[in-house]
């Protein structure tokens, strides 16, 4: 199948900066991921109190998706089941894993918590995004040692080719201690809104990922 798809938007959160479609929207002076994420949340004035319950991985993915879709009403173009979410990272849910491990490390202070344990799965970030945007489409989480455009491209393309979804949010959402990085793309069959950023292929995914300010 030779159908061409489009990267219609992309959002990058890393190095204390938030970019949408190559444009710098916000720069924070906060140093830790937690403080940075809170400053992004406040800057963009997002009314969503559940944000504060999330772990850093979910906060990062949630914010990147908020900004990715900023000003775009998905409901106009898509049904709930039309939008797939295919994400990846290197460290899975390692921050939440370490916190949960700490809660059981000592038999004298053995206190695992369900509200923490639930975040010990990387795909919870997909669940949080689905709840926020009322999306019920295909969801998938891959683990790779570094950003791998090929697996994202192949998976998203096949999902669109087979009409499993009509559009996809895809990319990389990584948090490991003091390190964090989110790069999300919105992939659509038509570049209807404005002109679209680029043709959807692995080379363009990588080029946009490697883009520096």
């Amino acid at each position, binding site marked *: 199948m030779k159908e061409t798809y489009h990267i219609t938007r992309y959002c990058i959160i890393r190095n204390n900066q938030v970019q949408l479609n190559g444009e710098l929207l916000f720069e924070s002076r906060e140093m830790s991921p937690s403080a940075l994420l809170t400053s992004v949340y406040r800057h963009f004035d997002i009314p969503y109190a559940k944000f504060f319950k999330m772990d850093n991985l979910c906060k990062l993915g949630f914010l990147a998706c908020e900004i990715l879709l900023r000003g775009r009403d998905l409901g106009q173009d898509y049904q709930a089941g039309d939008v797939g979410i295919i994400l990846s990272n290197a460290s899975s849910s390692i921050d939440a894993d370490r916190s949960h491990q700490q809660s059981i490390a000592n038999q004298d202070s053995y206190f695992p918590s369900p509200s923490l344990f639930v975040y010990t799965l990387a795909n919870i970030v997909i669940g949080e995004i689905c709840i926020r945007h009322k999306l*019920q489409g295909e969801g998938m989480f891959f683990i790779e040692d570094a950003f791998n455009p090929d697996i994202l491209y192949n998976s998203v393309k096949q999902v669109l080719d087979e009409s499993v979804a009509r559009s996809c949010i895809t990319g990389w959402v990584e948090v490991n201690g003091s390190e964090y990085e989110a790069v999300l793309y919105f992939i659509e069959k038509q570049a209807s809104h404005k002109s679209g950023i680029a043709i959807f292929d692995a080379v363009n995914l990588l080029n946009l990922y490697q883009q520096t300010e």
Partner: protein
Amino acid sequence: MTNVFVASDNIITSLGFTTVANIRNIKANKTGILPWTDTSLSPSPFWASRVDDQELDKQFSDFAPPADHTRFEKLVITSAKEALRNTSIDPGDDRTLFILSTTKGNIDLLDPALNRFGDDNRIYLWHTAGLLQRFFGLAHRPVVVSNACISGLLAIITGTRLIRSGRFDHVIVTGGDLVTEFVLSGFNSFLSLSNGPCRPFDRDRQGLSLGEGAGTIVLTADRSRAGQSPAIRIGTGFSSNDANHISGPSRTGEGLYQAIIKTLDANGLSVDYISSHGTATPYNDEMEATAISRAGLSEVPVNSLKGYWGHTLGAAGVIETIAGKCSLSENLLFGTLGFSEPGTSQTIAVIQHIREARLQTCLKIASGFGGCNAALLISKE
């Protein structure tokens, strides 16, 4: 559209180290879920289905020194090796892909006392992927799917799609997970563990039983490599999110219902049998019965295999699809160990005891944390 067939498979659980041994024990109504007192895993006694350590080391020693590998690595490698032994498909071929499905992999290494390998990276799933690539001489780095309790089913769905895309001819899908202190304490904090072997769909069900294990299903586009006659075909599958809650299933079963409906539409075949997720938590089974009823499948025989080998997390979708394949081959509906009295508000046709039936298709379903659900249809050619 390219057809995808099962070339070979393997199941490793408390019930045995081969598919044949596991199915034999299911037919004999044996459970591998036993009571344990092991303070290295839990401060209080617990029930779980665990793979025998000594037997695992013995099997693994055919391939490499057991002391050099983690328990998780030994499980998935042994399972994949065993499955590959029964097919001519070459794991090193450029047209072969390996997909690993797991929720937590080497998570036990987070406890410093258990990480004797001197490598902090070993806990990461990309590390396991690299190790598998070297071990099997794979042309491509394995893809790792980690998507809660639907990981195994999603891995099969992904592998099938990648074959249909034309990029690969063969895909080896191996799923695995361990019973660890990490996972036991987490499910315990949710009060979702059963005090006794789990009782799927039963009125008196109290929760799930954790299990460990690994399973491998080798998929191929090459009809001549299908491992049996009649060949078993892996159809189209879908996932769908509840968009409702991250740790509780939707009351209406919305996501699972959507995944089932899409799967039925795409395959255009009727369903002869449903292999459910059936964890035996009050909420999961209630949700599944609701989704099955909404999809108009309340008369279709349905079982849960969790009463035999527990909930094996990232392995579950793989080993239960393989069991579904065996049901189709043998025209045999396996029972639901632990079930006796209906216990869901929507009545579904739970299979209590093993029985013969003419079977052409099996619908495999799964649901997990994060509101994720998946469905897949397999059929007999």
